[in-house]
């Protein structure tokens, strides 16, 4: 490896509305290196790469590519400079073969397909990289890993020598990850430079040469892999404990309300998205769920709510096993369970309806007969708007999608709390909300806790989780890697559990 920088980004700032997604970020990539960008969700990793790929224009700062000051205003210009980004969601034509997908949109293509020439070129490149691609295989017959290889190949075929991989391992099995890393190593050997975005520490330690750690829109540090340890990286990733104004309310916890035993679920890619998860939830406690995005939080919540198919295991709630029951059945059994889903407008609320109708969603069945009455819901909506201080021009004929994120969440959470459920499950309740709105949400949750409600709180900000929750359950790749008392453990230990480097016992944390 030499010291030629192929990419130098200096002072990059990007503001979305009031949020600083990137705050004077520095980043550099050497020729022939694998550079990992490490950080929690929302740290700015993807934003930074989108700037490099020409999807976002930075508000401040400059970019040098291969020694030249450049203005990357579109992905096409990025590709002209040799920068190619692997999209997180693959953009392949299902009914086309691998070869046709490669040819489509390639600037080497002539009006009439010269299949033989393309196949020759593809064959050479495939052999060089040792990739497992059959040019004649149709995309719909491919596994996720094959599709990913094809996407990588597409980018390389179009002449990219700086490759950005955004969370490439999230959808892969361990064996497929190994293959991917082999390809990455071969690409580097042929002179490419690779940026890999991830939050998995093990992978970082395995594949990268240098590591840049990002947190909350800033670069913390760039380190050489040889000079660091996973512990140090986890520490930098999560940062020091922050003083937050998230009140912890001590409550003497009550009896066991929910018993989750050994639940397992499999996602579309045949990956165990929940892997023998077991835990209990007690009255008057907030159980935090921590974990890297996609560790099974969504499936756990939806599994409890009867929305995600669980392959095995039991969920005992009020003496009944609710696994295998859909929400209709669960409510018919007289079990009142409130789930505040992550996807507020796509699941929790109907975006085009007004507040009254959205309150009605959970109300309309209570009225006898065929009809619905908006009167009760109107009163409830009015009370909700007043109590939670929702700022909206009207509760009627004003779609909730026109409200701000914080107000949308207030409507959703307010509606669920108003139902006086016996169990409250919230997923990313404060995602995208400003400090003030988040504060109101925390207070609402604490209020429910004092009323001896059992609450499951899935969160992403460790500082918040640690100050709000009574216990924190850490998920990593669908497994529970620890259930800890946040007041008796360190943020770093939780960070290591999140990355699956360490389990509860090893971190030396107490079991609550």
């Amino acid at each position, binding site marked *: 490896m030499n010291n030629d920088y192929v990419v130098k980004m200096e002072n990059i700032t990007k503001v979305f509305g009031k949020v600083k997604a990137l705050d004077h970020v520095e980043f550099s990539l050497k020729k022939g290196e694998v550079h990992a960008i490490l950080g929690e969700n929302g740290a700015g990793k993807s934003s930074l790469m989108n700037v490099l790929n020409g999807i976002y224009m930075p508000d401040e700062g400059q970019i040098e590519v291969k020694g030249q000051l450049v203005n990357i205003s579109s992905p096409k210009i990025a590709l002209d400079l040799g920068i190619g980004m692997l999209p997180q969601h693959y953009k392949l034509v299902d009914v086309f073969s691998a070869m046709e997908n490669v040819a489509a949109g390639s600037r080497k293509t002539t009006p009439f397909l010269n299949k033989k020439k393309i196949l020759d070129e593809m064959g050479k490149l495939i052999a060089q990289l040792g990739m497992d691609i059959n040019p004649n295989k149709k995309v719909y017959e491919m596994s996720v890993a094959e599709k990913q290889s094809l996407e990588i190949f597409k980018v390389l075929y179009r002449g990219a020598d700086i490759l950005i991989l955004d969370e490439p391992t999230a959808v892969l099995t361990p064996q497929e990850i190994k293959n991917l890393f082999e390809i990455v190593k071969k690409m580097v050997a042929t002179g490419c430079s690779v940026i890999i975005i991830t939050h998995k520490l093990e992978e970082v330690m395995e594949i990268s040469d240098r590591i840049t750690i990002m947190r909350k829109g800033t670069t913390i540090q760039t380190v050489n892999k040889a000079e660091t340890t996973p512990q140090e990286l986890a520490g930098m990733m999560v940062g020091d404990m922050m003083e937050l104004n998230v009140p912890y309310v001590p409550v003497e916890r009550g009896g066991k309300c929910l018993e989750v035993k050994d639940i397992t679920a499999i996602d579309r890619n045949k990956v165990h998205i929940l892997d023998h998860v077991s835990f209990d939830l007690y009255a008057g406690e907030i159980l935090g769920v921590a974990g890297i995005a996609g560790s099974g939080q969504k499936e756990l919540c939806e599994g409890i709510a009867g929305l995600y198919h669980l392959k095995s295991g039991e969920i005992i709630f009020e003496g009944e096993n609710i696994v295998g029951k859909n*929400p209709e059945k669960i409510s018919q059994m007289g079990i009142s369970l409130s789930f505040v889903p992550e996807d507020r407008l796509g699941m929790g*609320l109907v975006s085009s*309806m007004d507040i009254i109708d959205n309150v009605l969603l959970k109300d309309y069945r209570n009225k006898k007969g065929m*009809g619905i009455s908006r009167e009760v819901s109107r009163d409830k909506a009015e009370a909700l708007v007043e109590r939670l201080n929702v700022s909206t021009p009207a509760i009627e004929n004003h779609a909730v999608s026109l409200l701000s994120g914080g107000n949308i969440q207030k409507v959703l959470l307010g509606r669920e709390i108003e139902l006086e459920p016996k169990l409250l499950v919230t997923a990313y309740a404060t995602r995208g909300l400003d400090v003030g709105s988040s504060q109101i949400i925390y207070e609402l949750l604490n209020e429910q806790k004092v009323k001896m409600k059992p609450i499951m709180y899935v969160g992403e900000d460790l500082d918040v989780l640690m100050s709000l929750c009574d216990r924190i359950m850490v998920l990593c790749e669908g497994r529970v890697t620890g259930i800890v008392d946040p007041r008796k453990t360190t943020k770093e230990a939780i960070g290591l559990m999140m990355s699956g480097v360490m389990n509860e016992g090893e971190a030396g944390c107490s079991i609550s």
Partner: protein
Amino acid sequence: MLHIVKKDVPKTREKIVVRLSAVLAALAVASIIVLVAGANPIELYIGIVQGCFGSLYRFAATIEKMVPLLVLSLGVMVAFKMRFWNIGAEGQFLMGAVGTTLVVRLLPDLPLPLMLLLMIVVSFAFGAVWLMIPAFFKARFGTNETLFTLMLNYIALTLVTALQYDFWKDPAANGMPKIANLPENALLPSAGGFNLSILMAVIIVLAMYYFMNRSKIGFEIAVLGESENTARYIGINVTKTIIIAALVSGGLCGIVGMMQTTGVSGALSTEITGGLGFTAIIVAWLSGLKVPFVVVNSFAFAVLLQGASYIQTAFQIPGSVAEMIQAIILFFILGSEFVLQYRFVSDKTKSEVA
């Protein structure tokens, strides 16, 4: 370069102004065609109005054209509200008419009230089944209902052709491929050109208004149409809701078959629909899938249809000219929807915004 950008929700005033100017512009453009056809546009337009409202008889003819379109549009609307693209109203219409004729053929001697009641039930069932088939496959196997319902139109049409040319061919029609006219005891009673189907339509409109806005199932259909995830989340039985919506949608279109056979044409034939099943799709969309607007727009379309048939005879212009005028007005109104929802911005202003 110009870009197309979505606008904020337009104000009611803006909507009225834009739509009115669309109609005026359409009339202006249509005038050119009228002139070429050798008529005076102003007189012709006045003629359209006279053709629709000039006498009680003409007004009755307008209403007669409105009723089937109205009920078809309401039927289509129910399915569309659920994002279930039922473009098979033609087929359900035909099947309803087949069911009606079948009742008469099987039980020709029923007294009129019983006969009508039975025909309503059977035509509803025939139309409903014709839509339940694709609905079942959609709910169960995720098939594409757009193609499915469209294809069923042709099956229904072929079936009616077979009945008309072979199985149910009237032996008394001197070899003409024709199905026998319905007997007296199977015709909708009428007075002064207004027949009983108007009353049926009024009842259907009121029932549908309740169904869409005040009933649990109507609310569930609306939620399901907006987001299947939300529907599942609040515990709506998705399959059941799809089937019920299909039942109502197809059933209403089927009843139109009964109304037209017993009230207007007097016999089943391949021409009985007059393409209204497709026009209904346009009416339902232009009305924003809202019952009151469906009523207004069905009437507006009926005026165009009746006016067009009147001016053909009164002004001796070819029928195609009248159809062209209709088409031009429709195009302008559809175009005005675009103007209401989008605006153009040039590249330069866009980058300033970004």
